[in-house]
């Protein structure tokens, strides 16, 4: 239990650091703004109580806000995603998945399930975040393109990250 907690804290710090120091510096274009820090929320075990997930996602968003001068923005978006995650898992997972301490990962759930899960929740997060950021539908289609291309890159980075860091998770 304690080891597990430490694992999560280390993982949290690592993911936040990678987001801030590596991913935020990928300045390819204004249409590519990946936010891979949501990986932490997405890989919380399936059986975790929804309200804990909501709390964790708000906290994750708050930490990101602190480092990007955008109070409330990431907090609202990540919290929304954390809340929707519960619904998505309820309809896409079997009873057995909720029984153990299974993390949503490629090795446990298969690549197709994983990609669909990541894409849908990342899309939700990005739609919320990007439209909230410009606070109007004035630049509707331009923002939509930013969302779609950023989602693609986020999912790409998350999948690579998952393959790198989560390979040896114990059963």
């Amino acid at each position: 239990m304690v080891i597990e907690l430490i694992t999560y804290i280390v993982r949290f710090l690592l993911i936040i650091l990678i987001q801030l120091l590596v991913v935020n510096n990928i300045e390819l274009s204004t249409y590519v703004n990946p936010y891979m820090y949501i990986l932490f929320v997405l890989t919380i075990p399936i059986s975790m109580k929804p309200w804990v997930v909501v709390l964790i996602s708000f906290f994750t968003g708050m930490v990101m806000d602190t480092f990007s001068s955008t109070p409330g923005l990431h907090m609202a978006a990540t919290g929304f995603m954390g809340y929707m995650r519960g619904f998505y898992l309820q309809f896409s997972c079997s009873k057995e998945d909720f029984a153990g301490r299974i993390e949503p990962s490629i090795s446990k759930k298969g690549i197709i399930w994983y990609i669909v899960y990541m894409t849908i929740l990342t899309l939700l997060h990005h739609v919320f975040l990007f439209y909230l950021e410009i606070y109007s539908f004035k630049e509707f289609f331009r923002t939509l393109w930013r969302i779609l291309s950023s989602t693609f890159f986020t999912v790409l980075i998350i999948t690579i990250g998952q393959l790198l860091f989560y390979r040896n998770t114990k059963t």
Partner: protein
Amino acid sequence: MRNLIFFFYKYYTFILFFFLELFSFVVLYQYNNYQKASFLNFTGGISSSFYESINSTTNYFGLRNINDSLLAENATLRSQMMNAYYQSGTTQTSINDTVYKQQYSYISANVVNNSVTKRNNYITIDKGAMHGIEPDMGVISSNGVVGIVTSVSLHFATIRSALNGNTKISCMLKKNNAFGSLEWNGDDPKFSSLKYVNKHVPITSNDEVVTSNYSTLFPEGIPVGQVYAHSLDAGDNFHVIKVNLYTDFSTLKNVYVIKNIFKDEQQILEGNLKGGN
């Protein structure tokens, strides 16, 4: 009563979610409305010192470019000094001048955090309230305009860069003083757009855009950029102008914060005018 308790029990996740979401919206809304940004003053210290320590390492990679730009700036400043001019008159009189009074002073600062690809970009610098920086001061680099100070902590300040949807800088064309407003449309960090220039104003490519005399943040005539492309839609009253910015935001390292000594006086006067009407 029992139903109420049952309701809370059944929907506690939603209620938790709802209140936290409400909280973040309040924070977000307050920040958008008032540039006071108490949230940043509260947390700014943590993130700024984090970026400062990262920056102290990565700074070494760019030393050569920084030196070059500083040398170039030194050269232009030197050419403006009195001893660079040939004295054509025979007598030199020195007057204790009451006509010219210093209006602007400059505080130099280093950039510790910066972004260019977000919709709303912010810059963090390593000077703060301790060094005399206040919110709503203009910021320039040696090449051109950078942005406006948003919030200040003791040792740091955050700047809303010109690459931000909420930044509007009053500008004009250098050749005929036609004024407009510089706003970024979020597309390309090298370009911005100049809006509200009347259609009767003649414009050609490569016209220089500078800050206008209407702004209390910037002295008149600070370079902003060059007209890159311009068009005029039928039935529209204003030109659509694309401006090539002089400031390269992606390699920004040294900036100057402008302190307008007469700003308060001007604003109080203008405030009186509004109150009087």
